[in-house]
């Protein structure tokens, strides 16, 4: 009897092609890690090759998904409406289609299957420009990082298994659209990371690993509180809100469609008068959005009334306050609290000053491939979480605290740069430069401007995403370069290097490009993101402080000089000059050259032609910005 409940799999029959591809991207590495268990002892080379195959399969599947995404993007673009290509719209259409048993919708790149009935948890996956770009980044960096770690000899099987599990966690985080599912993948990454640093790391690896674990777990607990708070809000009033809004509207209007969407989503529960709770990130975003809008309308009406009290304005205030009382599910205070919880949780990962202290330790102690993953992908999860969860669900909190986020961003930029300059450990320098560069992401996100000038914010947001991708490439590259020299010289003391360029000309040339890319030299990818972020910041000015954005922008831009200083100084200390000690170092091998080459090509390519990325992810971000900015009239 229980069996029939366990395997009530009718839902899985409707699982579409896109669902399989996305699941493949997430679980292919895990399956390969399972396979590794059955390889007999002592066959390390087989284990390595099989694991590489695992990362390659994931990469290929990601490319398939990318092609599908481009097709979808093109379809919308041809219809002249690239910005209608939102996850929300696609998910709504899919929900409607499922409710009416519509045709196969393999091309929509969203896929949802009920999982835990009691809590309404779904296996809900989907991609848009934001997650697509990060999935590609993850697939590429993982493959390159795995190649980097080819020479690891210590318990190869364990290393490969943990590495692949880590990739599963990362991919799952980027692809899941159900908060509960997201949380599981988010936490799934902690374990492999702990052991990868703790077992294969440097001398202080145990300290670094547990510090990383504790910091991130603390952040996760904060996220968990927000998750519970969102879930236990009964969404039934939202239905009333939609009904009221759709009254007397044209059947084809957006309002009526939204009502139908909601009916398709929660019709069964509405009929039974049960509480509607959800982990659906897109639905929660709608609720947060509309709640903030109601609040904004009320404040505007009150302000109008205070400025020119008339009978009419009084009525408007009463109406707005009644709407607020009836339909507002995520009130302003609630949104601020939840935003802070989520933001701190994600900012620890980002990492933002003052939650960054785990990062230098973890980076310095981690083996090179893991440093690459940490800097290249894991830090981006913080930014992704803020963009996917914190901003859309708690826009009021984001709006209220925009200046603070920007301020912390600027502090991270400046502090990170100065801290990097003071380091003598090569890896620590790169680690602090990461703190500095991720600060630009925060500043780019923060600069919330009014709807009429929302294109500036859009610059900032797009810049933030570009900065994440660019930093993913260059920081992974920088750690790789440090790793190469560490393998040969067996130390990382900056003051003890010199004359490497004479011994290793190819290596030095490639490193220079990567480091300049990280520095933000025009023509290389680091420049684009930083420039867009600073550009967006210039026009930021919360009420009462119109010039705040300029201060931020000037500080952020001025730090570029510091960045240039420490990077040039580093290059000078490491590569130039002459040294007897290092004159016999062999230049990079073919494998290393391949990894460096791919990273260098990407650094140059996306610096020269940023539209290669921007053209397809930009509509997603711009739509998000327009939606958020329109809340506050």
């Amino acid at each position, binding site marked *: 009897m229980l069996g029939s409940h366990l395997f009530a799999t009718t839902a899985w029959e409707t699982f579409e092609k896109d669902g399989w591809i996305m699941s493949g991207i997430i679980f292919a590495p895990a399956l390969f890690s399972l396979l590794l268990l059955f390889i007999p002892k002592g066959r390390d080379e087989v284990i390595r090759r099989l694991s590489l195959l695992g990362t390659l399969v994931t990469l290929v599947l990601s490319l398939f998904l990318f092609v599908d995404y481009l097709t979808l993007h093109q379809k919308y673009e041809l219809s002249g409406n690239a910005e209608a290509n939102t996850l929300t719209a696609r998910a709504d259409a899919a929900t409607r289609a499922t409710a009416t048993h519509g045709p196969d919708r393999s091309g929509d790149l969203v896929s949802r299957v009920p999982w835990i009935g009691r809590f309404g948890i779904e296996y809900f996956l989907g991609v848009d420009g934001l997650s697509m770009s990060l999935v590609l980044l993850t697939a590429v960096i993982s493959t390159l990082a795995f190649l980097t770690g080819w020479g690891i000899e210590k318990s190869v099987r364990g290393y490969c298994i943990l590495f692949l599990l880590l990739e599963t966690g990362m991919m799952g985080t980027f692809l899941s659209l159900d908060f509960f599912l997201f949380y599981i993948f988010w936490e799934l990454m902690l374990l492999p990371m702990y052991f990868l640093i703790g077992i294969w790391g440097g001398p202080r690896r145990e300290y670094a690993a*547990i510090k990383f674990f504790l910091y991130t777990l603390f952040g996760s607990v904060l996220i968990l509180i927000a998750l519970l708070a969102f879930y236990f809000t009964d969404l039934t009033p939202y239905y009333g809100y939609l009904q009221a809004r759709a009254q007397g509207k044209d059947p084809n209007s957006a309002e009526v469609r939204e009502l139908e969407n909601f009916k398709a989503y929660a019709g069964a529960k509405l009929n039974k008068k049960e509480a509607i709770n959800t982990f659906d990130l897109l639905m929660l975003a709608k609720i947060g959005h509309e709640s903030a809008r109601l609040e904004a309308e009320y404040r505007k009406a009150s302000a109008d009334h205070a400025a020119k009290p008339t009978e009419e304005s009084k009525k408007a205030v009463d109406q707005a306050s009644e709407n607020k009382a009836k339909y507002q599910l995520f009130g302003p205070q609630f949104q601020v609290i939840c935003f802070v919880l989520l933001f701190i949780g994600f900012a620890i990962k980002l990492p933002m000053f003052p939650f960054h202290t785990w990062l230098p330790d973890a980076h310095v102690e981690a083996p090179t491939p893991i440093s690459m993953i940490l800097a290249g992908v894991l830090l981006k999860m913080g930014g992704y979480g803020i963009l996917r969860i914190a901003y859309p669900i708690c826009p009021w909190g984001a709006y209220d605290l925009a200046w603070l986020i920007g301020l912390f961003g600027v502090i991270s930029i400046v502090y990170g740069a100065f801290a990097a300059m003071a380091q003598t450990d090569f890896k620590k320098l790169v680690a602090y430069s990461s703190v500095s560069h991720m600060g630009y992401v925060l500043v780019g996100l923060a600069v919330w401007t009014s709807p009429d000038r929302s294109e500036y914010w859009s610059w900032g947001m797009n810049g933030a995403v570009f900065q994440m991708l660019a930093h993913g490439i260059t920081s992974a590259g920088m750690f790789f370069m440090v790793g190469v020299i560490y393998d040969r010289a067996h130390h990382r003391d900056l003051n003890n290097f010199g004359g490497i360029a004479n011994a290793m000309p190819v290596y030095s040339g490639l490193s220079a490009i990567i480091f300049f890319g990280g520095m933000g030299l025009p023509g290389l990818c680091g420049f684009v993101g930083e420039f867009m972020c600073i550009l967006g910041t210039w026009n930021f000015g919360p009420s009462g402080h119109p010039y705040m954005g300029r201060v931020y922008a000037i500080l952020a831009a001025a730090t570029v000089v510091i960045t240039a200083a420490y990077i040039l100084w580093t290059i000078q200390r490491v590569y130039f000059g002459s040294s007897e000690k290092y004159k016999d170092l062999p230049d990079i091998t073919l494998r290393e050259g391949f990894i460096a080459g791919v990273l260098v090509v990407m650094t140059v390519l996306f610096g020269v032609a940023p539209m290669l990325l921007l053209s397809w992810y930009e509509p997603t971000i711009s739509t998000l910005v327009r939606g958020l900015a329109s809340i506050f009239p």
Partner: protein
Amino acid sequence: MNQHFLTPSAVQELTQSYSQSLGLFAPELILCVGIILMLLIRLFNAFNRVNLGYVALVVTLVSLWVSWTAWQPFLSSTPIKARENLFAGMLVYDGLSAFLRLFLLLAAALLIWLTLLTGIPDKEDSADFYTLFLGGTLGMILMGSSNHLLMVFIAVEMASLPSYGLAGFLKGRRQSSEAALKYVVYGGAAAGVMLFGISLLVGRFGTGYLPEVAASYLALAQKGGFDPLLMIGTLLIFVGLAFKLSAVPFHFWCPDVFEGASAEVGAFLSVSSKAAAVALTGRLVLNLTGSSLDALGSFEQWKQASIYFGPVLVLLAAVTVTFGNLAAYTQTNLKRLLAYSTIAHAGIVLAGLATLTAEGLSAGLLYMTFYLFMNVGAFAVVAFLRNQIGSEDVAAYPGMIRRAPLQTICLAVFFLSLVGLPPFIGYVAKFEVFAAIYNAAQAQSNKGLLVLLAIALLNTVFSLFYYVRVLKIMIIDSPAPGAESQPLSLPRLQNVFSLLLAIIVVAGVLIWDPLSQFGTQRSVMPFRGALPSIEASK
């Protein structure tokens, strides 16, 4: 309880109900038969050399099977709200008692298998050990179904007495005897206090029959005012239960007993005994708040009744979970560490019960079900490794990943699950409890529960450190120079046992939905009463 007057019709009614009661009581009776069988079988020389563990295992499995068939009605798509009084109302047969019985028998089967694998007890002592073991299990089952305050006391004692014996079972070890003595003294004192509380309540209401006590309790609470006698009586009963749950400050026995007793007995005490205490506490709490009455109490009534123990439970849970985790930091003996971890986990379950809702009890039961797998797994690995290296101290563990890779990885899975990290079932268990607390805090607009939630969540972070420290020693540290570092050869079945539990811990997310929908949710069906009124008061 008016049928106590022995009129002829009453006698006839009792006779009828007894025959029906015996039917529903079959799994317990099977256990009784098994116990008697094991005591008598040693009279025959032919059976002198048989390990009676196999007999105990068969008896438990038969009983488990009968209980499983008895659970079937609860699986029907239109859930029944069955509640049968057994033996003139001394026991009650409902979802909760049936679920707990299933749980305890499953735990007993697992633990007997474990003892058969580790060889504690040896063949000579097997009759004594398994008699005590099954007797304790029987007492725990009765704890879950007692419906009369007197029966509560008898059941608690019936579960405790065999446990004292089991704790002292390693007769040769001084520590074991010391553990048993401590346990007896603490247990005796707690039982006395509890009995005093019971006598106060029974004296106040003139009955010990739980539904009547509950009705009088509510009526008294509704009248308003504060009755100190009521509070003292109720809290003294909870002292006895807190002792069983090893809640702070009634936990002092726990680390010593766990350290002295064998790991197998530790697993029994931490899982079975705790689960029974959880069920009994849940039943009492929900009865006293009127959730089991057919006539729904109002939210105000509920609130009035809950002030006698609600805040105390919240406080108890917060202190227990924090203390358990902090005290575990400095432990070097693994059994002692697991004892403190048990205290911390009891705190989390208590936090679920402190919501005073059926949701909370359901979450607590789910927690215990998942806890069964991870904790038995952890104790099993400790026992297996003890058999090999003769030590339960972490100092003997460095480099264990090379000596016993499978067991080490399994222990890592169990420990990380005990921390509550996804995707292991420990996370799911914690999530259910946290969700119940948050929901109740909202529904009852109870700030205390929100604080409790924050404390419980923070404790998840605290607990990470000491579990991971052990894993670090086993996996990352290399053995001290000169120390034994040869690979251990564990019997294959021991590996199978650990691996099986580890797989359940990893893949248990898949049984979460059915277990909660058709298990724990159904088991608290009888207590759904007060929930609607709480919802309505929002």
